[in-house]
């Protein structure tokens, strides 16, 4: 043990970023560096580590403000390319959710596609109806908008960047079509979605440096952590190194859709399941001290996750034990004594590209690290929804 442990502040790191002297590496690179030279070396020499993930994140969407027409309308129902958006917020604000499906082309086109089309600069068909009021007399409108013709278009995703996630298998006799991809019968495959050692929240397991206000890469633009994500469960079971053994913390994130790039934001259709949005997220993690250096040095073989049987359609699915990401990446895992092919559902190739892009942003002084304005809750777990009567809920 060295007698003087290294520490650095956010300000010190940002000074180095501004001077172009920052040492920034990706989470893949730091894992190798730590394996070769040790965690203390990392603590001493690395200022920032970039992490990333690119995967299906259903809990995503965007707020849009269309501007006022003449005569004005207080939209009660709104459709974008035939996909219903939520407009119960003032007159011309709407939220387009990623998983909402087109009324004419369900399971083929949805909110995620509207978002991707907007980002790509394509015109989007806007249709709205209203009751008509004294100040908003208009009762319907039919027009086209683009991201540049409307006032605001900002992405607000209630739950992204899951810290770890399950491995899905199917022990039944029929093929299952799920948000974890197509699961072949009799343990025919095992799908997993976390980016492992590159994944943002697995490089800072207790979220010391990721909180409200953290500046991030979101869909190709600068974005921010807005809040704890929905179902944020930092209280989930952890291993001896503090790494959660299944889905745990999550982030709610926000960013300017107008500046995003469809390379890092793609609509997808999960066969016979529905529409989702692939979101690219990158988080820069400041190496404040030796502890953070240890966290960012985590390797695939140190990160375990839980194998769940998705053929049981209940909230608590039976599990088949733990595997680590090195095993998952090897192409096969063993489940119930059977050799099962593994299939990633998030793009490691694209995640690496994002970690690299973010590294360049930091190195070129385009992105400063931001100390969280407020830390996220530390112990809670996600609650289930019970079906109860009024009496029961009132009496707690």
């Amino acid at each position, binding site marked *: 043990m060295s007698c003087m442990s290294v520490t650095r502040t956010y300000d010190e790191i940002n000074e180095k970023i501004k001077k172009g002297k920052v040492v920034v590496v990706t989470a893949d690179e730091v894992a190798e560096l730590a394996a070769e030279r040790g965690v203390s070396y990392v603590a001493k020499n690395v200022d920032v580590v970039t992490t990333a993930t690119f995967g*299906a994140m259903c809990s995503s969407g965007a707020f849009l403000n269309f501007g006022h027409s003449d005569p004005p309308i207080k939209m009660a129902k709104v459709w974008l390319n035939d996909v219903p958006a939520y407009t119960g917020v003032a007159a011309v604000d709407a939220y387009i959710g990623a998983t909402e499906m087109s009324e004419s082309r369900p399971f083929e086109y949805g909110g995620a596609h509207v978002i991707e089309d907007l980002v790509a600069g394509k015109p989007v068909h806007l249709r709205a109806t209203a009751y008509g009021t004294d100040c908003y007399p208009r009762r319907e409108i039919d027009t086209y908008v683009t991201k540049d013709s409307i006032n605001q278009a900002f992405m607000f995703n209630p739950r992204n960047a899951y810290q770890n996630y399950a491995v899905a298998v199917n022990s039944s006799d029929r093929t299952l079509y799920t948000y974890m*991809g*197509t699961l072949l019968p009799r343990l025919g495959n095992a799908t997993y979605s976390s980016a492992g050692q590159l994944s943002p929240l697995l490089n800072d397991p207790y979220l010391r440096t990721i909180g409200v206000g953290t500046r991030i890469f979101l869909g190709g633009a600068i974005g921010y952590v807005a809040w704890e994500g929905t179902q944020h469960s930092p209280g989930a079971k952890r291993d001896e190194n503090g790494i959660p053994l299944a889905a745990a913390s999550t982030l709610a994130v926000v960013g300017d859709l107008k500046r995003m790039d469809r390379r890092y934001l793609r*609509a*997808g259709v999960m*066969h016979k399941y529905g529409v989702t949005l692939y979101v690219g997220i990158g988080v820069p993690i400041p190496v404040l001290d030796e502890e953070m250096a240890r966290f960012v040095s985590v390797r695939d073989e140190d990160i375990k996750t839980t194998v769940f049987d998705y053929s049981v359609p209940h909230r608590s699915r039976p599990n088949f034990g733990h595997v680590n990401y090195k095993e998952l990446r090897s192409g096969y895992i063993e489940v119930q004594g059977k050799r099962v092919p593994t299939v990633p*559902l998030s793009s490691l*190739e*694209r995640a690496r590209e994002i970690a690299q892009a973010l590294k360049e942003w930091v190195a070129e002084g385009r992105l400063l690290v931001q100390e969280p304005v407020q830390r996220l809750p530390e112990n809670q777990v996600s609650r289930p929804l019970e079906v109860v009567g009024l009496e029961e809920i009132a009496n707690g």
Partner: protein
Amino acid sequence: MARCRVVLTFPPDKVEKPVAYHLVKDFDLRINILRAKVDLNEEGKLLIEIENHKQEAIQRGLQFVREQGVQVELVDKELQWDDEECTNCGACTAVCRPRALHLEAPDWKLVLDKQKCTACGLCVDACPVKVIRIDF
């Protein structure tokens, strides 16, 4: 062992020709029918795998098929995906039982082992961004 995969395209008036039978019987070829799409009054298509210890035997068989007025295409070109639009997400590999499609280390991009592909078509629907095409 020589082996190849071909798509046989039958014009509407040749759909009912029993070519597979002749290939087995007269040319001593091992035939595995991977996919068939035959509509009466329309073109019919058959994807088959042919095996024999001699390449020439296969060639002779295919020559016979051509003489019957049936079009023969080697299958190599059948499965395609748009590399620019592919996100290398891996969803298609989940349904590929023969493991013809897989993401390959170290760069984790999608690769296809044409030899293993049975042209089952399952990957086409499994791709979330719909960039895989099988022209069959």
